[in-house]
């Protein structure tokens, strides 16, 4: 029985953990252990899916999905509880589980007050994000999409720093507003489908074939695009990101950058493009422009930042521009590259935020001015810092290079001009990365700093991330194989 409902278990296991933590909230240490236990269990469970080679479902699954659950829920509206996993979602799920473990590890020492609540919120976030990646019913997707915001709001507001209240509220309102317009679009296409076919349903597979008049389709796709573009973030809807990232606690930043941003991209790939292929084609030039501009703009502004975290935040804007570029190109290579880049960015930026957090814990400062000559003091930490900065810059052999390379090749075939501009953006990436490395790791120390090198826990986290980065950079083919089928199905839709 359980084996047919593995997806539900996957989505709700972390919530169970969160409830457990809240129930035993007297002891901080216990809370941490329970959180770690559930996060690792989730990771193992998601790893299990990699080993499946046949379709395991009780319910007839749509093409490409090898895990599928479909149960009646709110029949009144035609809403069904539908979860499905294909190659793309599996990658995202694995990334989520992995980053949550990292998130738990990173905040092990750093969070001193209201510890159980913090870890419970991390696990709740995981549930929400997994729900987003697995939902195949538009209503259920929207539900998880909104639910995701709640734990992050509390994470930023309670344990953040700087203007945390402002950033938390801004984050929530900005994203909420975007998704509300998506809700109107969802309802509209639901009603259209119902009027055309007689059956009212929110299931993605049912709604895909709906004939939408061209101009209405443009508006509907625009509403979807707005919601996803805010999450990406695509220029110019990125203004919530620097504040939210900078003022969030370390685990919050890691999850925000590595996972939340990917939900926007995933949504566009899974829902936006398949539902409105014609409108998507019409919007492609706009997305190209926003993506390319975002790549360069993000890099440009990152270069001028004095706060380490803000710099990495703007670098996220820049990197996600590549993902957007690959999606907009909508060719098999470009799309595979974009999806791979989603995973890569998750690993790299997660690691960078973790590193910044570690430096912050030691010196209580995120200003670049404070640092200098760190290499001599903490060689291990500096090694990882250099590694991940190089990964972020797109050094061949490390993960980001593969993703960006695929995206550029794929895009160049269909749209050489944006690809060309994006390539220039890569140069700018190098500029701020080198600046960051140079000012923090090398050079003279500006203030006398006392730092201890990596602890076992920190070293473990960074080592695991590094292994991931190198593996993804050297041997990405298994992952590419995994997404090949779904990508072909998606692109064939266009």
């Amino acid at each position: 029985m359980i084996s047919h409902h593995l997806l539900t278990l996957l989505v709700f296991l972390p919530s169970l953990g969160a409830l457990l933590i809240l129930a035993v909230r007297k002891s901080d240490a216990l809370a941490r252990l329970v959180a770690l236990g559930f996060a690792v269990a989730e990771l193992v469970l998601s790893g299990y899916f990699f080993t499946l080679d046949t379709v395991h479902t009780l319910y007839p699954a749509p093409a490409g999905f090898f895990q599928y659950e479909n149960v009646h829920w709110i029949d009144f509206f035609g809403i069904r509880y539908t979860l499905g996993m294909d190659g793309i979602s599996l990658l995202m799920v694995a990334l989520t589980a992995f980053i949550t473990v990292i998130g738990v590890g990173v905040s092990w020492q750093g969070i001193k007050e209201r510890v159980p609540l913090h870890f419970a919120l991390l696990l709740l976030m995981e549930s929400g994000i997994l729900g987003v990646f697995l939902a195949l019913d538009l209503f259920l997707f929207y539900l998880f999409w909104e639910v995701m915001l709640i734990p992050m709001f509390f994470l930023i507001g309670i344990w953040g720093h700087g203007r945390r209240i402002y950033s938390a509220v801004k984050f929530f309102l900005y994203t909420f507003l975007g998704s509300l317009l998506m809700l109107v679009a969802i309802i509209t296409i639901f009603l259209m489908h119902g009027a055309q076919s007689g059956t009212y349903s929110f299931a993605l597979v049912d709604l895909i074939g709906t004939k939408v008049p061209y101009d209405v389709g443009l508006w509907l796709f625009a509403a979807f695009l707005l919601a996803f573009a805010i999450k990406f973030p695509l220029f110019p809807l990125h203004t919530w990101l620097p504040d939210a990232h900078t003022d969030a606690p370390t685990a919050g930043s890691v999850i925000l950058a590595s996972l939340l941003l990917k939900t926007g991209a995933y949504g566009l790939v899974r829902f936006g493009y398949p539902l409105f292929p014609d409108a998507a084609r019409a919007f492609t030039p706009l997305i190209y422009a926003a993506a390319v501009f975002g790549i360069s703009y993000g890099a440009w502004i990152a270069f001028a930042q004095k706060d380490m975290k803000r710099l990495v935040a703007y670098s996220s804007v820049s990197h996600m521009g590549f993902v957007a570029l690959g999606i907009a190109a909508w060719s098999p290579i470009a799309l595979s590259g974009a999806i791979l880049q989603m995973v890569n960015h998750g690993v790299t930026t997660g690691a960078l935020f973790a590193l910044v957090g570690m430096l912050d814990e030691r010196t209580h400062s995120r200003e670049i001015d404070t640092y200098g000559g760190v290499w001599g003091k903490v060689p291990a930490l500096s090694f990882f810092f250099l590694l991940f900065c190089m990964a972020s810059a797109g050094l061949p052999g490390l993960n980001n290079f593969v993703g960006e390379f695929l995206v550029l090749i794929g895009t160049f075939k269909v749209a050489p001009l944006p690809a060309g501009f994006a390539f220039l953006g890569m140069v700018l990436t190098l500029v701020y990365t080198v600046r960051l490395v140079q000012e923090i790791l090398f050079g003279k120390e500006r203030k006398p700093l006392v730092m201890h090198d990596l602890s076992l826990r920190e070293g473990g986290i960074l080592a695991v991330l590094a292994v991931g980065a190198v593996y993804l950079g050297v041997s990405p083919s298994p992952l590419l194989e995994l997404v090949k089928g779904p990508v072909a199905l998606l692109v064939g839709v266009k």
Partner: protein
Amino acid sequence: METIAIPAINLAPIMPEIILSCIAMLLLLVNVFVPSESKGYLGVLSLVGLVATAASVVSGWGQPVAAFGGAVQLDNFAVFFKLIFICSAALAILISDKYVVREEINHGELYPLILFATVGMMLMACGMDLMVIFLGLEVLSISLYVLAGFNRGSLKSNEAGLKYFLLGAFSTGFLLYGMALTYGATGSTKIGNIAGFVATNPQVATNSLFVVGMLLIAVGFSFKTAAAPFHMWTPDVYEGAPTPITAFMSAGPKAAAFAAFIRVMIVAFPTLKHDWTDLLWILAVLTMTVGNIIALSQDNIKRMLAYSSIAHAGYALVGFTACNPEGVAGILFYMLSYTFMNIGAFAVIVLIGKKGEANGNVQDFAGLGQKRPLLAAILCVFLFSLAGIPPTAGFVGKFYLFSAAIKSGYIWLAIIGVLNSAASVYYYLRVMVYMYFKPSEEDFDWVGMTPAIAVCLLLCVATTLVLGVVPGTVLELAQKAVQF
């Protein structure tokens, strides 16, 4: 001796009202003999009475029964609304015990008044004659005037009562004049007959008497549902009235006004839909927007919830504008879920408040998240539901209403509705910001939980979450209720 032939009167449709009135009158009697420490038992008695009434109401589901020559009709629509009223009265009584003890109000008469108000509401829901609706409305309103001014020692309460009375009586005048003109134009006060007249004589829509009458009725009901621009009384009255009464006022009477409004507009004037849906469109947009915008700047939490209730009336008006079965069923579902989430929020406010209605500002909630996490979490559920964030009943309600609007073709109305929802999130989040993000030395030791409030909170949270996750059954009930 000649026996007088008494015409057969079918009392079954108004049995709930009869039961409740008798119990209320009994309570008035008992109140005289009960010493003031045991007045709490009156609350228990009134709850028992409400349960008995609910049982009698539920028995009317399924087959419509009319009485008094068609002046009263107990159909599914009436049953659904009556249950909402009974719930709001019961919840208000549950949270009033702690409040009246704290404010030292002699509350023996509070419970009968709430019950009488409920009788008035129930009459409004099942009335099929303008006279009966007027009667129900007046019984409700007069009880509410007294209830609003119940705390005689408090200046704010006096002022709330007086303001409500003057403005309420003023609007009743308009409503009555509208009813009189409609009667003159169509020849009858029975809603069924009016509908028949309008159907057979469509040119009545150009009769100025009729149009003015319809407009005045709309104005009168807009006042009662606190739709802009007739909402000015709501914040002052809600802020000044005792908190449990505010909770009651925000839920039950609003629903009752909608029930009567729906009956009159949709049953009596269905063929003139295209005439007044434009008017309703403007009303809905104004109400939502005014409510949300002014709520953004409020510090006093009761005032903030008052403006939010104006905004929620606006969302319900969106369903009204849609004027299709989904829209009306959406209003029913929304009123039900709104009752529970709003009274739940007020229950928490009663707990946090101090004597003399002190401690009523948003800032006074600072630190609640740490010191009383369960209470703060419960309030969060209600606030998320009011804001329309899944997976709560508020979200499903808004979803249903906006779907109905889009189905009727009012896309822009739905868009304005969701934009307003987004704006409203700001002031609901503000409370959460204070609860969780702001530090405070307050340790909230005066916040004592009573069994009554615990039951109320439990019921409200359970309903809000259950209706958010599995609303199917209630949605079907609402749909069945509008098939008249």
